[in-house]
C-alpha cells in the first residue's frame, strides 16, 4: 500500500462496492424471489410468473453477473490505488 490515506480510501471504495452488490443480491433473491414473490406472480414474463422466474432463474443469472462485475471493478480499483499484484 502506498500510504495510509490512500489505503483507507481503497478500503472505503471496496466496502462501498461490496455493499452495493449485496443490496442487489438481496433485493433480487430475497426480495423478488421470496418476500414479494406472491405479488410479482401477477406479472407475466412469457410463460413465467415473474416471482417464480426470479426464484428459479433470474436470481441465478444475477448472481453470476454480480461476481464478474465485482471482479472487474475491483481489478480497476487495485490499479487506481496501485495495490495490484505485479
Amino acid at each position, binding site marked *: 500500500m502506498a500510504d495510509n490515506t490512500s489505503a483507507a480510501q481503497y478500503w472505503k471504495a471496496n466496502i462501498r462496492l461490496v455493499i452495493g452488490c449485496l443490496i442487489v443480491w438481496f433485493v433480487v433473491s430475497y426480495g423478488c424471489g421470496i418476500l414479494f414473490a406472491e405479488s410479482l406472480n401477477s406479472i407475466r414474463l412469457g410463460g413465467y410468473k415473474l416471482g417464480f422466474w426470479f426464484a428459479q432463474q433470474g436470481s*441465478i443469472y444475477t448472481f453470476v453477473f454480480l461476481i464478474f462485475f465485482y471482479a472487474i471493478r475491483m481489478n480497476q480499483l487495485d490499479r487506481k490505488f496501485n495495490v495490484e499484484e505485479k
Partner: protein
Amino acid sequence: MSILDWTYIMVGVTFTLYLSIAWISMVKTTKGFYVAGGGVSPLANGMATAADWMSAASFISMAGLISFMGYTGSIYLLGWTGGYVLLALLLAPYLRKFGKFTVPDFVGDRYYSNTARFIALICAIFISFTYVAGQMRGVGIVFSRFLEVDVNTGVLIGMAIVFLYASLGGMKGITYTQVAQYSVLIIAYLVPAIAISLKITGTPIPQLGFGGVIAEGVDNGKYLLETLNRLNVELGFAEYTKPFAEGGKSMLDVFCITLALMVGTAGLPHVIVRFYTVPNVRGARLSAGYALLFIAVLYTTAPAVASFSRYNMINSISNVSYDKSPAWFKNWEQTGLMAWVDKNHDSIINYRSGKPFIGKPQFTGETGSYGQLIVSNTLTDNDNEIYIDRDIMVLANPEIANLPNWVIALVAAGGLAAALSTASGLLLVISSSISHDFYYRLINRNASEKQRLLLGRIMIGFAVCVAGYFGIHPPGFVAQVVAFAFGLAASSFFPILFLGIFSKRTNREGAICGMSAGILFTIIYIINIKFFGGTTWCLGISAEGIGSVGMLLNLVVTIVVSLLTTPPPQEVQDMVDNIRFPRGAGAHFNN
C-alpha cells in the same frame, strides 16, 4: 448395444481418464498436496470448484425434489448458488491473500488461539464426513442400478478409485480430475435435458422451454407452467408456481432455509480451500465467477428438467390403466422406487396429493391381478395410489423420453463423476485437517515435509475407509445430518471468517464465544427436532433453516464479547491490514 455394454464403456473410459490425470499430476510437496502449489488457472479452478460443489445430490436428487415441491424447490436453487456471491465478495480474495492451507489455519492465526483452531478443525472434519458418506452411497447406488453389481461392491470400487487418485495427486490431482469430471457431468446432464425440451416444447434450450409453450399432445399451444398449474390443481396439489401454499413452508421458513444454505455454502471448508489454489487475489475473484457460471449451467437447467419430468410423469401414468402403463414404470417398480396400490379397485393408476401408504414399499413377493407388485405397507386413507421416489426423476428421464441407450449410460457416468468429484474434495479436507491442522500445527511443529506428506496420504486412506464404512452401512440418519452440515457451516465458520477480515476489533475471546454459542444453539435445536421429535419452537423455523439464526447469534455474540474484552495484539491487526490489499499474494506463500 445394450444399456449395460454402453455403461461399462462410459464408466471404463471416464475412470481411465481420471486415473491417468492423477498419474500425470503426481505431487512431491505438501504445498502441492494441500493447495496444488497455488498455481491453478482461475478458469480451471472455477471448473474444479463447480465439480467439487455439485454432488450426487445436485446431480441425481435436486431436479426430482423441485419437481414435487414446485416453487418451494427454489430454496435449493437460490441457497446453493447465492452463497458464491458472499464467497466472492467477502471471503475468497482475502483468504487467498492470507495464503495458508486450510480454514482452521486462518481461524487459528487470525484469532491467535489454538482453542479456536481446534474448534474449527473439529467442525471441518464433522461437516466433511457428513457430506462424504452420502457421496459414497451415491456411487454405490449408481453402480448397482446401472452396472448390476451389488451396492457394497460399488462402494468398494468407488473407494479404490478415489483413494488412488487423491493420494497420488493430492489437491493437484484432484483439481485436474475435477475439471474432467465437470465436463462429464455437465454433458450427461444437458444431453437428456435438451432432448426432452425439444420433445415437449420444440426448443433445444431448456431454460426457454421452461417458460415456453407445449408443442405436443392435447395441451399443444398452452404454456408449460400454466398447464402444470392446472394439472396440479386437478390432482389436489397446490399450483406449481404458487409460493407458500397451504400445508407447505411459510415465507419465514423459506427465507431462513435459503439463508442457511447460502451462508453454509460460503462456509463449507472444501469449497473455501479451492480458492487457495489460484496464483493471486485477482485469480480468486475471477475464479468465483467462473465457478458460479459453471454451476449455473446445471442449476438453471435443473428447474426446467423438474417441470418437464413432472409434466411427463403426470401425462404418462396418471389415470392410465396399469396394464397400459409405460415399461419404465414397471422397471422402476422392480427397484422398489415406485409402487402402485389399487385402492379403489378400478385398475387405473390414480395419482393424487398425499402419501399412498406409510413408509417405503415393502413388497410381499406376490403380484396382483394386473401384474403389479403387492406391498404389505399400511395404506393411508387418501386417494393417492402411487409411491414415487424423488431420486428417479433424473435417472428415469432418458427412459421416459425414449432416448437411446448411450444417453442412459452417459447419465450413469455423470452421476458417478458428480459423486466422486465431491468425495475427493471432502477427503482432502479431512486429510489436511488431521495431518496439517492437528498433527503439524498442534502436535509436532518439527515434522519434516516428507513426514507430513506421508501422513497426508495415510489420512486420505483412513478417511476413505471411514467414508466407505458409512456408505456400506448408512446410518439411518444420513438425511437428517445434511441439515447439520449446512447448519454447522453457517453457524460456525461464516461469521468469524467474515468478521476476521472486515473488523480488526474482533478478538480471540469474541470468536471462541461466538462460535461456541452459534454451534451449540444450532446443534441443540436440530437434535431436538430430528432425534427427539421436538417442535420448531423458534418461530416455526425448520431444522434446515435454523443455521441462519445460529449464524446471527454467532455474529452478535462475537461482536459484543469482542467489544467488552481487549483488542487483538498489534501484529494480528497488521495481518488483517495486510490481507486487505492484494499486492504480494504470490510471495506470501510460506509456513
